[in-house]
């Protein structure tokens, strides 16, 4: 187990340590040879094309080597051949479950380089849509993770409730997955008539769904047995691998860019709690995301109450030319820290864009994390880290 050097809470540690000890002895005595297991690239637990070459000693993993790049689209190169408004289309497809949230940091970067600011109403609508995509992403996770330990019912609940949220996003932006709704300086359109009331009632559905998941999954004995004490990321190891977002908060690191980073969108105006869990195991990652889904729904409700009136688009020149300069912008996306280092040479397109995506770093801890775990636990650990292949490969 990866639990050896962690001082996490009592129940998480060493419940199965005795078994492991016994196994290790048996393996030494019998001198069993290693076996190579190819997990993927088309494995249902990887949600895409991630391949992990696992060397096994009996049922336990000796080394794990993730092989990525099956989905590599070279976005950093492509941005150099696009104008700033055209780049939005590309970055929509990095993390395709929360596309709207991907657009926000890039728009922020371009706007700050151009010294323009989106109007307050646009900022609020951006905040609402970002949190809606967080809810949509996490609802899928809450169902999917349960499916990986054999519970099929939550999947349908997750998909059903995510549908309501996607309907909202579609009603506002016209796109379910790739809204492409942000413009430099604001938004394409205002919210449609009746949308705010609709959104309010949907948030009630989401809050109820969270209660359902809590009853269905978190109280489940099998789920606990499969996730408690499994795949522990200690709080001093996660940051050195660049693990961010809910995965890091589940290790007890109290760090959320919405609260701690440079102020962006309407987050300074909102009152919200950053949830952490001390254990760092698969269970706590599920628990933290469940709480964050609730928190996101509450934040949407707050935004709906406080949404200012006014235009949704600032005065922007017809042809977007960004002055020379470089800027680093980071935001708290559903999967973790997302950032763009944009270098402009004063042209209509960026000179260089470094895309820092959350899943890339979250998955880079796998060789360390999977060492010594059992094969079935590999699946639950992969599911609990919750990555999107497009976000790894870019």
């Amino acid at each position, binding site marked *: 187990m990866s639990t050896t050097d962690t001082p996490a809470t009592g129940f998480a540690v060493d419940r199965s340590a005795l078994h492991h000890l016994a196994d290790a002895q048996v393996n030494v005595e019998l001198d069993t040879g290693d076996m190579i297991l190819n997990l993927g690239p088309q494995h249902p637990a990887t949600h895409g094309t991630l391949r992990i070459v696992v060397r096994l000693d009996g049922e336990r993993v000796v080394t794990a080597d993730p092989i*990525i*790049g099956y989905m*590599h689209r*070279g976005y*950093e*190169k*492509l941005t*150099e*051949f*696009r*104008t700033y408004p055209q780049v939005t289309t590309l970055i929509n497809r990095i993390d395709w479950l929360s596309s709207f949230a991907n657009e926000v940091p890039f728009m922020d970067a371009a706007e*700050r*380089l151009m*010294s323009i600011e989106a109007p307050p109403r646009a900022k609020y609508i951006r905040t609402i849509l970002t949190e809606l995509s967080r809810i949509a992403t996490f609802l899928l996770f809450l169902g999917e993770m349960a499916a990986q330990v054999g519970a099929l019912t939550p999947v349908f609940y997750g998909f059903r409730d995510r549908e309501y949220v996607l309907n909202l996003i579609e009603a506002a932006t016209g796109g379910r997955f790739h809204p492409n709704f942000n413009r430099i300086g604001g938004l394409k359109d205002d919210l449609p008539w009746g949308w705010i009331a609709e959104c309010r009632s949907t948030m009630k559905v989401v809050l109820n769904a969270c209660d359902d998941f809590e009853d269905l999954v978190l109280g489940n004995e099998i789920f606990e047995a499969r996730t408690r004490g499994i795949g522990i990321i200690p709080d*001093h*190891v996660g*940051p*050195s*691998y*660049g*693990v*961010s977002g809910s995965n*890091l908060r589940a290790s007890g*690191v109290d*760090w959320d860019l919405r609260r*701690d*980073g*440079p102020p962006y969108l309407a987050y300074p105006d909102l009152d919200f709690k950053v949830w952490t869990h001390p254990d760092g195991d698969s269970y706590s990652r599920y628990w933290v995301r469940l709480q964050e889904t609730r928190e996101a729904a509450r934040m949407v409700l707050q935004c709906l109450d406080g949404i200012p009136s006014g235009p949704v688009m600032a005065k922007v020149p*017809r*042809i977007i*030319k960004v*002055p*020379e*300069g*470089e*800027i*680093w912008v*980071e935001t708290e996306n559903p999967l973790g*820290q997302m*950032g763009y*280092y944009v*270098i402009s*040479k*004063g*042209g*209509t*397109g960026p*000179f*260089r864009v*470094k895309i*820092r995506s959350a899943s*890339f*770093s979250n998955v*880079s*801890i796998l060789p*360390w994390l999977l060492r010594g775990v059992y094969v079935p636990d590999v699946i639950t650990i992969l599911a609990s880290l919750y990555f999107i292949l497009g976000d790894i*490969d870019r």
Partner: protein
Amino acid sequence: MADEPTTDPADDAQPTPNPKHEWMLGQLRDALDADLLESAVAFDDLVVRVAPGSWRHAAEVARDRLECDYLCFISAIDWQPAPREGDDAGGDTSAPVQPTEMTFGAAGSAGRFQVFAHVQSTGGHHGLTLKTDVGDEPSAVASWVPVYPGADWHERECWEMFGVVFDDHPALRHLYLPNEFEGHPLRKDFPLLARVVKPWPGLVDVEAMPGGDAPEPAAVPAGDEDAS
């Protein structure tokens, strides 16, 4: 040293120094001495350029003295402008207009290639960007893997995309690209092959702007200027 680059219009209005930046800069200058070459503030982000020989030492200082326990990313920049239509390297026809001479960004550079990284503190909520020069034909620089284990994949990506070698890296092999891939795609002289095979279709049907006024020259990509 800590002067803001004159090219940043947004920073002119806010000359008040950030105490976090001052503290980080002081610690770095204390530890690196003359190897801290230049520093700048680019939109509230401290950018520090260090000598290539101190690249790993800078990471150790950032981790141990600046409390930056979180590795955000490591990558590189190729400052050379991309060749355009008519240039020898068979440049792209659709790239948005870019300057033709080589200029450097915040904190300067000594040559074409630069390795840069961003580290942050999860407890102190501060961060900084570190840069180092690797020259015109990238020379090797020390790996950060002993300092931040997460540097592994970032450096593999940086190596295959830019050709920057990281000394003491445990396994510098391809990350995204197939093993037999030749060249370094993110270098500016590596053409975007899709555009070489088929020119950007947007060039052919340029829609007239509403109101009948012709598009401003700046909006027209490079290749179109030759056509008119």
